[in-house]
């Protein structure tokens, strides 16, 4: 869809704004360019619709070199959204939305229809068509700014920090709306931002730039897990790396490795006394090889106390378990989805190795927020 081949932008004073950039963007992909100011991210974006001329190399849109195209026609075929919104203050919302349509000499009916159609996408009432930009809130204005970019249905849209000037709450809702819209319409987006949270939230792939060069291109998850170098780590910030960590924490790291179990063949009576001793209301049942067979809770015992004698007769065998190396995030999802109190952890031979309970998760949350206590221990040991 969009290809950069050895793209270079050099200013007259010999300084590089963008240096030998290579990148391929697939159709429907949401790409975020991010980096400190002056890293060339905006320059890169503006070269795509020829607001800035390329010094060397080439950019292909749909396989066609942009240098061979008429810049005016090219710009009309690429959507553009800027941070300052830039709605025409002397035109109504309708005129603003279909501005490109006006330039392309659409008929009045077509413009009218397209404006209505687009306004519906962002859930604004139709009366807004005849309003003027200054009568709208900042968030509403930027919605119109996005619609203007969509008007002629361009496959590619360039966005220069479009939500940067909005308050955090409006920004959040606009980001979500826009991501949804982008998926529905299957647009290719080149999105420039300096806000890492925004990039992580929206992007399919993030391009991290520094001094005109690409430092890392990857999915948000991959960047959080494996930052390419110190610069990326620093740019992400410690906070985010820690936040990113639960995603890579495995169940094995946090599980309780001494779950309360009884073996098959145990009588219900002794199972009850085990429960009482260990103060639990549920037991995991294993065989002599420690292979997980099922579980037993206090209610099942209550119901069947008179009828049955041994645990395997009343135990529930339908049991969700996870592996030691499963990701914690998936496990949490499982626990929540099944409304379970806990998930047993097994190895590849289905032998019980541990348990993740809601209490384990609560401890983890506590540790993430208030530190895991190791710092305190260190301080104590140093003091001693």
């Amino acid at each position: 869809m969009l290809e950069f081949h050895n793209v270079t932008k050099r200013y007259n004073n010999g300084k590089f704004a963008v240096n030998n950039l290579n990148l391929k963007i697939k159709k429907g992909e949401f790409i975020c360019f991010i980096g400190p100011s002056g890293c060339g991210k905006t320059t890169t974006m503006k070269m795509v619709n020829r607001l800035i001329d390329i010094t060397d190399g080439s950019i292909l849109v749909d396989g066609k070199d942009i240098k061979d195209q008429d810049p005016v026609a090219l710009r009309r075929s690429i959507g553009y959204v800027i941070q300052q919104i830039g709605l025409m203050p002397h035109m109504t919302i309708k005129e603003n939305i279909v501005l490109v349509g006006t330039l392309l000499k659409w008929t009045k009916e077509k413009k009218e229809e397209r404006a209505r159609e687009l306004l519906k996408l962002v859930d604004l009432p139709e009366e807004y068509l005849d309003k003027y930009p200054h009568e709208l809130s900042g968030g509403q204005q930027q919605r119109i700014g996005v619609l203007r970019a969509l008007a002629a249905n361009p496959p590619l849209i360039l966005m220069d920090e479009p939500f940067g000037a909005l308050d955090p709450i409006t920004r959040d809702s606009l980001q979500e709306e826009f991501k949804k819209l982008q998926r529905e319409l299957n647009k290719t987006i080149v999105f420039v931002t300096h806000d890492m949270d925004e990039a992580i939230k929206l992007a399919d792939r993030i391009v991290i730039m520094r001094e005109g060069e690409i430092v890392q291109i990857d999915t948000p998850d991959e960047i959080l897990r494996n930052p390419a170098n110190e610069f990326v780590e620093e740019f992400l910030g410690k906070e985010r790396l820690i936040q990113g960590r639960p995603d890579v924490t495995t169940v094995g790291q946090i599980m309780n490795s001494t779950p309360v179990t009884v073996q098959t063949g145990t009588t219900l009576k002794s199972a009850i006394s085990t429960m009482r001793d260990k103060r639990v209301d549920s037991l995991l049942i294993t065989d002599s090889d420690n292979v997980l067979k099922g579980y037993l809770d206090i209610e099942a015992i209550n119901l069947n106390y008179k009828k049955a004698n041994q645990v395997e007769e009343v135990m529930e065998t339908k049991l969700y378990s996870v592996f030691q190396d499963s990701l914690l995030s998936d496990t949490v999802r499982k626990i929540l989805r099944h409304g379970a109190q806990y998930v047993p952890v097994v190895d590849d031979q289905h032998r019980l190795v541990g348990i993740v309970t809601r209490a384990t998760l609560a401890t983890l949350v506590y540790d993430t927020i208030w530190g895991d206590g190791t710092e305190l221990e260190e301080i104590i040991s140093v003091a001693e």
Partner: protein
Amino acid sequence: METLEQFIYYVTQNGGYIWVQFYRHFLMAAYGVLFAAIISIPLGILIAKYGKLSSWVLALGSIVQTIPALGAMAVIMIVLGLGTNTVIVTLMLYSILPIVQNTYVGMKDVDKTVIEAGFASGMTRFQLLRMVELPLAISVIMAGLRTALVIGIGIVAIGAFVGAGGLGAVILTGTNASDGTAIILAGAIPTALMAIIADLIMVWIERKLQPIKSSKSRAA
């Protein structure tokens, strides 16, 4: 009291004459400003686009503005002779600065982000000028025309000295007559009225051309 009676008498007796001069006076002022606008608005746009020229052009305009109108008119008369042409050319000279200046400011004041958005949406330079910059600058440009017209009405009054007629001629008649206060007033009051009315009308037009409208005011 006597002056007032004389004034009323003069006006009733020469109403037709005063009206003809009033009309002539207005036309000279209007033509002067119109011709000045034809030169100045494009010039203002030009210097707004090419910043380097702006200081030169504006400085030149200011210098012209410092020359006394009577002196300038006398010099131009040497070239163009007696009559209305001299007045109109003088007036043009004096109108150029306010119009160029206002056009320049109006164009410069157009929000750069709006221009960027328009340009990136695929407007040509000319479309940008016609659809964005001029509509947004027009009320400021109109303010320049208003200033020029009001100044112009004053300058045309001097035109009587070069035989161009107008209300200045009425005033001149008064100064030449013994005890001509009433006649001077009969020329001066319509001149002042014309300036005030022209100003009011131009303000009204200026407001009408205000680019940033409100949907409510349109509905009402």
